[in-house]
């Protein structure tokens, strides 16, 4: 195998600018892929966090009895769209209020359990089911109103979807572009080494012996780009992390620090993608330009 690496080393040394250009194109592709995956996984984690919180709260009118609440819970559960339901009594509502305002004694003095409504915290399996469920609950005569504590989930769902579509499209385009760059560069190298290839054939070199160095060369460009792209994307993430964590507030603990499993998993995914892009590009060039 060392002989093939020695051939590749010579090939790269003979055309350093092409090698550099190929590696940079690969680096850009894999940097985008790495960044896209980091953002996609991060936004997914944030989405999960918000999804785990109650997505809608139905406030009951005064005088609602437990049987009414139970009946509403049964109706909701029968829809099959409910992830969780949590009934908050007037007393529990007061406890929550006190906890949230423990630093403001004035607010605590003014509020008693009687003025706080009982409520039902509703989480749905899919954020898309939230509105139909809210409409259903709103029709109940014992329900005063239904509120959405935050519209974060739907915004995040939308944002995650956009990230996936745009990121996926950009990475897909770059992967195709990078493969074509490898085809062009390896194809060009085969063309300028035609005489050498002819000589090797006359010396009795088997087909694989001639092909392997070119295959390896494409994979090396791709792998180098992938590792650089991975390292650079995490370096940038580390650099901007203070700013990012500040902006994310309470959610930051969900996404930072990234787990070792995620970091190494991303590297492994990049390496596999690099093998595919480099291998496919070189293989196509060999099929196209090296007819033995």
């Amino acid at each position, binding site marked *: 195998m*060392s*002989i093939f690496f020695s051939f590749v080393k*010579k090939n790269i040394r*003979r055309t350093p600018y092409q090698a550099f250009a190929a590696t940079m194109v690969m680096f850009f592709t894999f940097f985008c892929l790495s960044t896209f995956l980091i953002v996609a996984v991060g936004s997914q984690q944030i989405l999960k966090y918000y999804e785990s919180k109650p997505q809608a709260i139905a406030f009951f009118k005064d005088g609602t009895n437990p049987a009414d609440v139970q009946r509403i819970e049964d109706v909701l559960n029968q829809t099959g769209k409910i992830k969780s339901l949590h009934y908050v009594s007037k007393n529990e509502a007061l406890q929550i209020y006190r906890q949230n305002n423990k630093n403001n004694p004035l607010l605590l003095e003014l509020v008693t359990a009687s003025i706080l409504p009982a409520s039902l915290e509703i989480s749905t399996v899919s954020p898309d089911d939230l509105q139909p469920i809210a409409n259903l609950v709103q029709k109940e005569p014992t329900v005063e109103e239904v509120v959405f504590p935050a519209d974060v989930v739907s915004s995040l769902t939308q944002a995650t979807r956009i990230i996936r579509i745009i990121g996926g499209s950009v990475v897909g385009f770059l992967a195709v572009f990078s493969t074509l760059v490898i085809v062009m560069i390896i194809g060009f190298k085969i063309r300028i080494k035609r*005489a*050498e290839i*002819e*000589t*090797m*054939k*006359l*010396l*009795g*070199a*088997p*087909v694989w*012996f001639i092909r392997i160095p070119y295959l390896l060369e494409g994979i090396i460009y791709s792998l180098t780009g992938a590792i650089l792209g991975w390292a650079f994307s995490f370096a940038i993430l580390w650099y901007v992390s203070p700013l990012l964590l500040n902006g994310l507030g309470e959610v930051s603990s969900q996404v930072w620090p990234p787990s070792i499993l995620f970091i190494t998993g991303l590297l492994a995914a990049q390496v596999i993608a690099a093998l595919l892009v480099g291998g496919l590009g070189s293989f196509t060039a060999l099929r196209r330009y090296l007819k*033995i």
Partner: protein
Amino acid sequence: MISFKNVYKKFNLNINALDDVSLDIENGEFVFLVGQSGAGKSTMLRLLAREYVPTSGTILIDGVDISKLKSSQVSEYRRKIGFVFQDFKLLDDRTVFENVALALEVRGIKEVEINKEVEKTLKMFEIWERRKLFPRQLSGGEAQRTAIARATIGKPSLLLADEPTGDLDPQTSWSVLQLLLEINSWGTTVIMATHNKEIVDSQKRRVIALKAGKIVKDKHQSLYEIH
């Protein structure tokens, strides 16, 4: 033994590069292939190297029809022959040592053995001192010695030399001929295509003359004349 039986080679519909060529060459022979440019000498050598296949007819090497070899068998076959060219065909980005080693590398031989064998061969061909130089740093004679070393390091049973002295001065040409004769003395069949009348006449070996693709003379202990 090499046998050409009614071999034709056409590159287009009208011109026969080889026209009904039949001949036998015994193992261990030294044969001069002579004729004007375009007579078909190089075509014969390229057919023997299995770069071309005949349009019709058969070429047998030790009883094997080489035009029927599969791709993988062709590379195996070529490892049994050596090829020397007028323009040397050395690889520019490899040193003398690496160029000669390449012939063994393609055979999958271990590096330690390659190093030993290349050293022995380069010393024998008196180019060991030049082992670290690249082809562009060599004289014509040194480059041709390197090419012959590369062609013979695998101990081929057949050596094909296509105008090996074509680009060399007379003195160097003689030294190249001496090398080929020495290789022939080891039992290797040598077929040398040449225009060099002096060299051919000096040796009085078998001379096969070609004209417009046909054999016009095939005579042992002969001189250069093409008739």
